[in-house]
C-alpha cells in the first residue's frame, strides 16, 4: 500500500525533490528566520537570550566601525566591478580574434589563479606586498627609485593589494564567461556588418556588447554578491581580522568579529540582516534596471 503510494506518478516528483526541500528548510529557511529573531535579541552562545527590541539596529546606526566596514565593502565592490567587467570583456573579444595565436594556452594561464584557495592566494599576496625592500612589489618599485612602501599599513595602498588579489584571481574566470557568451553570437552578424562597412569599434559597440548583455548581467550579479560578501581575502592579507585602523575591515569581517570573536550573536545577526538587505536591494534594482525579469522564462 505504502509502496504503491510512493511509486505513483503523482508522488514520485516530491520524493525526487524532497532532499532539496529538507536542506532548504533546515539549513536555509530556519537559519534565516532565526537570524531575524537573533537580531532582536541580546544573545550569547549556550546561555539564555533576552529580547532587545531594536537595540541592535539602533546601535548599528551610530557604530562608526560598522560604517567603516560598510564603506570598505562598498568601495571594494564598486572597484571590482569597474576592473573586473570591462577588462575581461575586452580581453575575451581580443583573444577570440581569428588572428590570435595560442588561444588555449592563454585561456588556461588566465584561469590558473582561480584554482588556488583564498588562503594560499592571500598568503602569496601578503608576502608579495610585504613592506621589506626585497619583497616582490617593493623590489620592482625600487627599480624606479621608489622607497619601500608599507602597503598593508595604509588605506589606499592596502586596497591596492586587495584589488590586485581580486583582479589576479578573477580576470580569467570572467573572461571565460564572456568567451562562452561570444560563442553564441553568429558570425553572420559580423560579416553583414563588414559588408555595410562597419569599423571594428562599431562592431564591438553595436553587435558584441548588446549580445553579451545576458552574460554581463550574470557577471554583474555574482560580482555584486561577491564584492559585498568579501571577507577571507582581507583576513588573509592582514593575517587575521584586525587591520590597522580597520582599513581592511568588511561587513562580513565585522559580523565575524562581533559574532564569533566577541560572542555577541544578536548584534552580529543584525549586521547580517543589514548585509542581506543591501545585497538584495542592489541586486534587485540592478536586475530590474537591466530588464532581466522581463525576459526570464
Amino acid at each position, binding site marked *: 500500500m505504502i509502496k504503491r503510494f510512493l511509486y505513483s506518478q503523482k508522488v514520485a*516528483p516530491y520524493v525526487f525533490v524532497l532532499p532539496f526541500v529538507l536542506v532548504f528548510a533546515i539549513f536555509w529557511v530556519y537559519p534565516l528566520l532565526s537570524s531575524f529573531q537573533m537580531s532582536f535579541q541580546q544573545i550569547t552562545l549556550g546561555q539564555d537570550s533576552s529580547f532587545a527590541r531594536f537595540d541592535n539596529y539602533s546601535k548599528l546606526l551610530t557604530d562608526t566601525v560598522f560604517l567603516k566596514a560598510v564603506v570598505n565593502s562598498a568601495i571594494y565592490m564598486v572597484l571590482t566591478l569597474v576592473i573586473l567587467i570591462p577588462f575581461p570583456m575586452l580581453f575575451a573579444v581580443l583573444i577570440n580574434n581569428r588572428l590570435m595565436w595560442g588561444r588555449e594556452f*592563454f585561456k588556461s594561464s588566465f584561469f590558473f589563479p582561480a584554482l588556488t584557495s583564498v588562503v594560499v592566494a592571500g598568503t602569496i599576496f601578503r608576502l608579495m606586498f610585504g613592506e621589506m625592500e626585497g619583497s616582490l612589489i617593493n623590489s620592482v618599485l625600487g627599480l624606479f627609485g621608489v622607497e619601500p612602501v608599507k602597503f598593508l599599513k595604509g588605506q589606499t595602498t592596502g586596497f591596492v593589494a586587495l584589488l590586485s588579489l581580486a583582479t589576479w584571481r578573477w580576470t580569467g574566470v570572467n573572461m571565460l564567461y564572456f568567451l562562452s557568451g561570444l560563442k553564441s553570437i553568429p558570425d553572420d552578424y559580423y560579416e553583414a556588418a563588414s559588408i555595410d562597412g562597419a569599423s571594428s569599434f562599431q562592431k564591438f559597440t553595436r553587435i558584441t556588447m548588446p549580445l553579451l548583455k545576458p552574460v554581463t548581467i550574470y557577471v554583474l550579479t555574482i560580482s555584486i554578491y561577491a564584492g559585498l560578501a568579501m571577507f577571507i581575502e582581507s583576513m588573509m592579507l592582514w593575517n587575521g581580522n584586525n587591520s590597522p585602523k580597520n582599513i581592511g575591515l568588511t561587513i562580513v569581517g565585522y559580523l565575524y568579529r562581533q559574532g564569533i570573536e566577541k560572542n555577541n550573536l544578536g548584534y552580529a545577526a543584525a549586521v547580517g540582516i543589514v548585509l*542581506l538587505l543591501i545585497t538584495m536591494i542592489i541586486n534587485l534594482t540592478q536586475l530590474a534596471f537591466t530588464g532581466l525579469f522581463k525576459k526570464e522564462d
Partner: protein
Amino acid sequence: MSVTRKERVVRICLVVLFTVLCFFILVPFYAVTISAFKPGEELIRYGLNLRFDLNVMSLDNFVYLFTGDHAYFTWFFNSLLLTVVQVVLTLLISATVAYGFSAYDFRGKNFLFICVLLIMMVPFEILLLPLYKLIFNIGLMNSYSAIVLPSIANAATIFFFRQYLSGLPKELIAAGRVDGATEYGIYVRLILPIMKPSFAAMAILNGMNSWNNFLWPFMVLSNEGKYTLPIGLKTLLTPYGNNYDLLIVGSFFSILPIFLLFIAFQKYFIDGMTAGAVKG
C-alpha cells in the same frame, strides 16, 4: 588563407599583449614555486621575491614536508576525504532533485525552483551565525557532517543539471513507463547513465570548491586533527611565530594536485565554471 601585412601586425600586437598579461598572472606562481625551495628565513627577511639563486635553494623544505613532525598530511588527507564525500553526495542528491524538477509537472514546482534561484542570491555569509548556533545546538560541532550536510542539495549544481536535462526527450521517460519500469527505475537505469558527461563538469567544480573551502569549515572544526588543508595552512600563520618553511612548501603542494587535474581535464573545469553564465 594568406595573411595580409596589416593582419600580421594585429596578430603580433595581440600575442605581445597577452604574453605581457600572462606574465603578470604567472609571476605569483613562479614566486611561490621558487620560494618552496628557499629557507623560511629568506622569506621573513626579504619577503616573496623572484630571485633564482641556487646557492640558497635546496630540497630541505620538501624533505621536511615529507618526513618532518607536523600534521600537514593529516590535513591533506582530511581534505581529500571531505572532498570525495562531499562531491559524491552533492552530485547524487543534486542530480536527483534536478531530475524531479525537469521530468515532472507538480504542484509547487515553480515556487520550489524559485527557492533554488533564491539560494544563489542570498549571501551564504549571513547564515554563518544562525547555522553556527544550529550546529552547536544539535551537537554537530567539530564534525564533517556539519560541513557536508548544508551543501548536499547545492543550488548551482541543481541548476546546471536541470539545464542539462531540459534538452532530454520526454519520449524516453514515456517509453520507460511503457516497458513497465517504475518512476525510480527510469531515473536510475535510463537517466543517470545519460547524465554521466555532465557529472564530470560538476564533480570538478564542486571538488575544487570543496578542496579550497575555508570559512565554514574553519568555524565548525576546532580539533587540529580534523582540520582541512586550508585551515591547517592558515594556522601556520599565527601571531606566535610563523612557520614559513612549511607554509610555503605546503601551499605549493596544495595547489599541485588541482593544477595537475586542471591540465588533464581543462574542458570540464571550464564547462563547470561557466555553466551558469549562458542560458539555454
